[in-house]
Structure formats: C-alpha cells, structure tokens
C-alpha cells in the first residue's frame, strides 16, 4: 500500500468540493433538537452534528467539520443518507456504522478511514442529546450490545474494531488507548487475534469498500 494515496472516489470528491447540509447560520438561530460532537482538533479531525426531529424522524441535519477531505466528504455524505426520504427513523440512524458511510462513498483509501469514522459517532451523540432533551433518556441504552472480549476492563469487540478503523495497527497501541488486557491478561491472545483480523481486513488492499 502506498502511504499517500490520493485515490478518492468521485463521490468523496463531489462531497468534498460541494459539501451538502453545512450549518450556515448560527447555532442559536438553527435551534437544533440535538447536538453531538466528536473528535478533537489535536487529532486533526473534529465534527459537530445538529439534528431536528419530528415524529421520531430526523427531518433535518446540519454539520460542521474540521478535517481533511475524507472527513468533510463523509460528514456531507452522512447528512444526505440521514435526511433522504423525509428523514431516517431515530432507531435506524442510531445503527449507522462507518462501513455504511464508506460504502455510500464508494470506498476510501485505508489510511483515510480513521478520518471518517467520527461522523456516525457524532450522529449518535446528537441523537442521545435529543433523547435527553426530550425526556426519553431511557431509550439511550438501546445500542446493540457487542460481545465483551476483555471482561476486566469491559472492552467489546466493536470497540476494538473501531480503534483499528481509527488507525490503531498493533496490540500495544490498542492497549495504550483502551487499557485492554491490563488486568488479569487472560483475554490477550484473543485481543491480539482480533487486532490482526481487523488490520488485515481494513488495510490489506488499496481501497477499503466496506463489509
């Protein structure tokens, strides 16, 4: 794999050069029902998602992103996916995965995946924010539970996969970021296997097109 791969799909380019649904007025004026944020400028990517909800559907979504072309392109793509056909139902939107966005974008170079996995997290945060604002906090724990791999530190397989998507490529780095396997250590062989599995899956080819 080439480290600097500029093979952005036409879809990514289209959304990067002409981003859709950018928040153009002030937050106060927009009056979102839910706001979610993810990432940090220190890491080079940060995004904010604002949603409006009616009859359990996200009928409008606006966003702002600090980040590279694929971060901007993927947030724009996400905004279209969520608001198409009168808006997605909240439960369905909650389930959007990076892979879904990557698929819609027509694939991303592997070293760019980590810039693009923030959008769905920010969206989930916005939905949770909406639930809290509207007295429905009980709905927040409906996220599909993933299998717990490290029981001591409560790390799930999904989390490990996410870390790899965000750029972690070996066990030591994963451990630094999540503390996985730092207590009893029984889970270490399995965690190592999972890291290898996902690194292979996401970074093997020049373009990762989603599962």
């Amino acid at each position: 794999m080439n480290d600097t791969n500029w093979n952005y799909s036409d879809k990514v380019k289209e959304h990067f050069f002409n981003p859709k649904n950018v928040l153009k007025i002030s937050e106060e004026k927009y009056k979102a029902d839910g706001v979610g944020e993810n990432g940090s400028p220190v890491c080079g990517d940060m995004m904010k998602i604002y949603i409006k909800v009616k009859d359990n559907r996200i009928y409008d979504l606006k966003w702002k992103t600090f980040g590279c072309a694929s971060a901007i392109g993927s947030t724009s793509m996400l905004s279209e996916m969520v608001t198409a056909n009168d808006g997605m139902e909240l439960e369905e939107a909650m389930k959007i995965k990076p892979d879904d966005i990557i698929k819609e974008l027509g694939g991303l170079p592997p070293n760019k995946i980590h810039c693009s996995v923030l959008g769905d997290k920010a969206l989930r945060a916005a939905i949770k924010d909406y639930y809290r604002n509207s007295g429905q906090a009980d709905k927040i724990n409906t996220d599909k539970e993933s299998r717990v791999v490290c029981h001591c530190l409560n790390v799930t397989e999904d989390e490990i996969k996410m870390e790899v998507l965000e750029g972690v490529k070996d066990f030591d780095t994963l451990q630094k970021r999540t503390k996985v396997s730092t207590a009893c250590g029984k889970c270490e062989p399995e965690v190592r296997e999972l890291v290898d599995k996902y690194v292979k899956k996401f970074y093997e080819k020049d373009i990762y097109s989603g599962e």
Partner: protein
Amino acid sequence: MIYLDNNATTPLHPKVKEKIIDFLDDYGNPSSQHEFGRKVRQMVEDARKNIADFLNCDPDEIIFTAGGSEANNTVIKGAVSCCAFCNVSNTHIITSAIEHPSVMNTLKCLEQQNVEVTYLPVDEYGLVNPKDVQNAIKKETALITIMYANNEIGTIQPMEEITKIANENNIPIHTDAVQAIGKIPVDLKKMSVDYLSLSGHKIYGPKGIGVLFRRKGTKSLCPLISGGHQENSMRAGTENTIGIIAMGEAIKQLNLEMNSDVKKIKYLRDKLESGLKKNISNISVNGHSEKRLPNVTNISFNDIEGEAILLRLDMHGVAISTGSACSSGSLDPSHVIIALNVSAEQAHSSIRFSLGRENTEEDIDKTIIAVTETVDFLRKISAI
C-alpha cells in the same frame, strides 16, 4: 497551473533539458579506455569540476550518488557500522530533531543496532543551539550530522559555528545541504564540514542523482554499494552518466543565475507572505523570519486542516504541500512543526509554499486570491 512546491522537487532548467537531450546518444561507459568511454569520462569529469567550482572544493572530493538520501545514508551508516574489518569503536551520533527522513529514519534504524543517537531539540524557530552540540559530545561520538536548511520551514542552522565546535573536538561533521544549495551561498573553504550532501532534483536537475562531498583527509567510509572502483571506490556501479552530466549543467546554471534568481524569488515570497497576512486573519508563520531560505514560507491557517487546503488549492490550480497528518499517511503531523513546540492543531493546519525560478508575479497574485477563498470556505464549515 501554479507550482509552489519547489522544495519537493523542481522542473528541469531548460539548459539542463537541452544538455540531456544532446547527450542521449553518448552511451559509452566512462570506465572504458576506448574513444566511446573516454568521451563520456571527460564529460563526467567536467560535471564534477562544475560542482567543485561552485562549492569551492577539489573535484576529487565529489562523489556522485543516486540522490540526497543515498549521500546521507553513506555518511551516517559509514560512520558507525560497516564490515568486520573496519572495527568501528565509536558509536554515538549527534543530530537534530528536525532532520529529513533520510537522516532520521536511518538513525532510527541504527539505534536498533546499538548505536546511540542524541536528537538535539530546536527552539520555536527551528534553530539548533550550538551550545547543545558542544554539550552532547562524548568520547564515543562518531559523527555530528545537522541539516544546513530545513525542507519544511526553511530554517538555516548556524552551520559555521557548529562546524567549528566539531572541528575543535576532532569529530567528523556532516551536513545535509540538499535544500540549502542554490538558495544560499555555500563555500566549503569557509565552512570546513567533512561531509555534505546534495541532490539534483532540488536544483532544476533530474531525480535520482546526488552528490556526496567528502573532504580530503577525513576518515574513509565503507561504501554503501560495494563493487567496482567507480567514484574512488566510494560508490560502485556504472555511473548514472545522464544524471551526472545533467547535474553538472544544473550547477553551472546556478553559478550563472543564482544571485538574480534568488533576489526575485525572495521578493515574490515576501509578497506572498504579506499578501496572505493582510487578507487572512488568525494565521502564523512557522520558522525563523530571517534565518530562513528565501524561497519558502510555512504558514498555519488555524482552525482548518492542511490536506483539505491542499486539495482545494489543487482544484484552483495551485500546488503546495502540507505537514498535516492526513497527508502523511500516519496519525501524527509533521515532526518538524511539532518540534517547534507549536500545538498539534497548528501542525495539522500548516501549509508549505516553496517558490522557484519559474514563478512570476502573476502566480503570486493568483495564489493570494485562491488561498484567501479556500481558507474562507473551509473556515465557514469548520467545527472549531
């Protein structure tokens, strides 16, 4: 298209291009004794002399390599490790935190082989403090290698001072002058470094050709590529004759044009920098304001990310480069900008404009407009 990435590489000088085309049929091997060989040998030696004249050294001190990276590798690896016969006992190297990857990663590799490396910090402008060099020296020190001028921010190191310290302590000193040559005067009689690296493609010559200067009388190095006796047995392999002849011509042109070119380039760089400062708020220039290459300005456009700027400028037909992580393929932004102790945010937002002899006033006017528009657009959609 407007090309402002001359620190990455430069277009061929038209005279160099002409020289290459004229030479293409001269296929002789310079080691051959017949007429075919002798003719090319003469041309290779003429090229060597051009380079020696320009640097103010002896032609025997010029070794042709396959580029700047190879020249750097030859000195660094040769100083501490080679074959069983060399019996190298000194295994400590002093360098800076902002070297080019061809130095940095070579040293990282040697560290795995028990070579000790001291990475000297730089100040907020990218300058190495010569006192730190003095303090880092120990009896095991085999080499000091400090780049003459940095490729990303253009900061020029106090090489004469650092060289004096090395000389006084009898320690071999090398400088990577790949970015300095052709932009600032380099005189090897005035500055007595032992080794110096050059590259052809940064001075309007072709890629894949470089020069290692090795001062007469300094410790001989084990060649990186062993084999025949070419280049005084310092670099085996039939010479890259096209590259050598082209490099000789490129340097000849520098000798003729450098002074006037640099004056024009510096004027355009200053115009670009002040135009951007005037049009765009919340930006900062990385590097030293005076001790800096005349062709480069490295600017952080706060609150937006470098790769996004690069690609939008590319759409406007302006070619630049960035120190952001996103363009490097790793999770970390440029080690050079980070070494200046600026925030990671600022590093992700850094853009390098590097000018060359072909740039015009019109290029700069257009660039100022394109950058202003791009920054304005990206700041409007930024989450910060």
